[in-house]
């Protein structure tokens, strides 16, 4: 028996009085919502993804979008989504893929944390007048420094390990060429070069257009080892081993063959149109000792000149895992929380596996401090960081720096429609179709992303100044400057913060 169709997700309507039939909506919609018949714009709302491309391009604000125009009988357990997923799987028998990050209404811990400010007893600092030190070094710090006296001079004898120098504790996370377009990646690369920070290349090799910005890149080596050779490793300012991703902990990745165009095929060094499969584990890492071997192998190959990061998804035992990583010669541990974005992930993973980044940062920072090895690794936090408030709270919880992903894409036009996996992104971000990719001008894109980084950096300085802090080191791990608002005692204990009022 046929299950029939499910109701529309979005209903598009055009105010025909306002519409001047400029056809921008028809030209801009890559999903085929609009077509022209007998000089009339016909709408197929079923194809709409709520990407807002048409709405943003309409010169008359004539387009309206309504989410879920058809009601189901309301039910608290059998939500619309629950019912529609069952219908989908009854039809197909397949795993449901979804884009972007976790879409379940879990509480957002960041929004239950409040920052401190100075009043009367210690003065706040005005960042307009006083220098605010945001420069951040990512990498190992020596546990002690040794000097020798030399005719009145003092020489440092301790051998320092290479660190990355960031102008602001904010980097752009790993989104591969393949998952996103070249113009999107190029915009991000130009933006980090402008703002004195870094971006991840993702697992997909490095396209030669990124070479001019390679000193601002962190090259990634994941289980598929796509595009990885000695030249690639030497190009990056740092190397990151991707073990896991917050949006899909414990599983690998598949770049569908449709996205493997000639240029992606060349950069990844795989045949045109073949699936690029990254297995779930690295098959040369089956233990913490094997991880240390890969870390050291990467360092050995690059003459111990590059910091090596290890990225893991925030999972239940994240603190113990991070403590293992800190002993592997790695220079930084990247923790990706369960709200992290993705081009495509099985929905059941995206929505159900992993833990929130806020708890993970605090747990890892505390564990490393307790074991006296916090100086061995920097902590980079990612997964759902939306604004400078989240950034400041992440650092106060114990992170050295954060990676942003989705926020940087929103700066390029993304409206979080979550259809990245279809390769038709009308904003030219998650697509390899040249006519869509060309919609991003990398110069304009770079300026938008650089503006965002600049704005958050300004706000972070203001927040620090208000709290009477003039250096980022004084905020880092300073959980005394946070309070929990309506958080339960268990979570307050894990994060080692007090309740508001306490």
């Amino acid at each position, binding site marked *: 028996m046929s299950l029939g169709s499910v109701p529309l997700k979005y209903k598009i309507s055009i105010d025909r009085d306002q519409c001047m039939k400029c056809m921008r909506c028809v030209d801009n919609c890559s999903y085929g919502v609009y077509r022209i018949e007998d000089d009339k714009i016909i709408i197929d709302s079923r194809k709409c993804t709520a990407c807002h491309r048409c709405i943003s391009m309409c010169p008359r604000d004539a387009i309206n979008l309504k989410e879920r125009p058809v009601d189901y009988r309301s039910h608290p357990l059998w939500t619309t989504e629950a019912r529609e997923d069952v219908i*989908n*799987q009854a*039809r*197909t028998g*397949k*795993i*449901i*893929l*979804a*884009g972007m990050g976790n879409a379940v209404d879990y509480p957002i811990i960041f929004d239950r944390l409040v920052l401190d400010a100075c009043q009367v007893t210690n003065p706040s600092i005005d960042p307009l007048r006083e220098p605010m030190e945001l420069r951040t070094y990512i990498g190992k710090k020596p546990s002690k420094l040794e000097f020798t006296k030399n005719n009145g001079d003092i020489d440092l004898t301790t051998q320092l390990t290479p660190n990355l120098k960031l102008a602001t504790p904010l980097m752009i996370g790993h989104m591969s060429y393949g998952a996103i377009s070249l113009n999107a990646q190029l915009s991000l690369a130009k933006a980090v070069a402008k703002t004195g920070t870094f971006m991840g290349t993702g697992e997909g090799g490095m396209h030669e257009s990124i070479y001019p910005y390679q000193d601002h890149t962190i090259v990634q080596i994941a*289980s*598929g*080892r*796509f595009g*990885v*050779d*000695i030249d690639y*490793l030497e190009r990056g300012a740092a190397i990151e081993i991707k073990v896991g991703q917050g949006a899909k902990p414990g599983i690998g990745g*598949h770049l*569908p*063959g449709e996205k493997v165009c000639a240029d992606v*095929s*060349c950069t990844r*060094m*795989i*045949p045109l*149109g*073949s*699936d690029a*499969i990254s*297995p779930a584990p690295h*098959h*040369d890492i089956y233990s913490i000792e*094997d991880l240390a*071997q*890969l870390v*050291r*192998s990467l360092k*050995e*190959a*690059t*003459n*111990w000149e590059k910091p090596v990061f290890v990225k893991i998804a925030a999972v239940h035992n994240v603190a113990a895992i991070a403590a293992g990583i800190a002993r592997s010669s790695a220079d930084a541990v990247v923790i990706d929380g369960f709200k992290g974005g993705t081009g495509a992930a*099985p*929905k059941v993973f995206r929505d159900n596996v992993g833990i929130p980044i806020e708890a993970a940062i605090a747990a890892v920072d505390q564990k490393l401090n307790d074991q006296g090895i916090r100086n061995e690794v920097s902590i980079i936090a990612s997964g759902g960081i939306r604004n400078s408030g989240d950034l400041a709270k992440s650092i106060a919880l114990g992170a050295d720096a954060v990676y942003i992903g989705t926020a940087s894409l929103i700066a390029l036009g993304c409206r979080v429609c*979550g259809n990245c*996996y*279809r390769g038709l992104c009308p904003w030219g971000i998650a697509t390899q179709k040249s006519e869509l990719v060309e919609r991003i001008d990398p110069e304009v894109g770079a300026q938008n992303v650089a503006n965002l980084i600049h704005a958050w950096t300004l706000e972070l300085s203001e927040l620090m100044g208000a709290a009477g802090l003039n250096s980022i080191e004084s905020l880092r791990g300073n959980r005394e400057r946070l309070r929990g608002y309506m958080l339960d005692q268990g979570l307050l204990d894990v994060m080692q913060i007090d309740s508001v009022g306490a």
Partner: protein
Amino acid sequence: MAEPLVIDTKGMHYTPLNRQIREAVASGVKEIVLNNVLGQRFIGNGLRGDAKITVNGVPGGDLGMFMSGPECEVFGDAEHAPGNTMDNGVLIIHGSAGDAVAHSMRGGKVFVEGNIGYRGGIHMKQYECKRPILVVGGTTHAFLGEYMAGGLILVLGIGHEPAVQDRGIGSGIHGGEIVIRGDVDVKLLGVGAKKVDFTEEDLENVTPVIEEFCERFDIDPKPFLNTNYSKIVPSSARPFAGKYTWE
């Protein structure tokens, strides 16, 4: 021909050893002999050029990882993952090797005279003229050529009947080919792998590989040019295309 650089590696850590090798190759040394090698990892790691390195002893893991060009000949066994993510060049191992031999190898050749462990040739890949080759004289353990995306794995199975008797051959394979002497029980194939006829043309293609392998180890190639092989290839270049539905 200049005298080879001979290094006695007894008790030496891998980092100074590799530094010495890298500096020697950079200064134009073409031949390096390492004596008393015992467990030093990462030998030849990321090394470029056309030098020849002779390893007398048993090197540690990740021999020739990211290596791009040199030839490395080992008189002894090798450990975990020789030829890992290797780009170009040759590894010749006069002995057996551990797990994940030629892991994610991208180009060049790995010749192992004896046996290899689990996951041999896992995720080997190829691109245009870069086609990695792994030849195993003896037998292999489970998951040979798992997730294989390109290249050639050839197992001669000298002294083993059948040549391979462990399971999961080519599980998740989506490119490249695995050629095994004699018949392979289809029960041993992993998900996504299929056995196809080994044709005269296939034999012509592998003949130079067999001849080179036999020459390296001073083995008579005739018995291997006049016998049957099984060829294992992907059943699809898109093994996961049918697994997912959209939200």
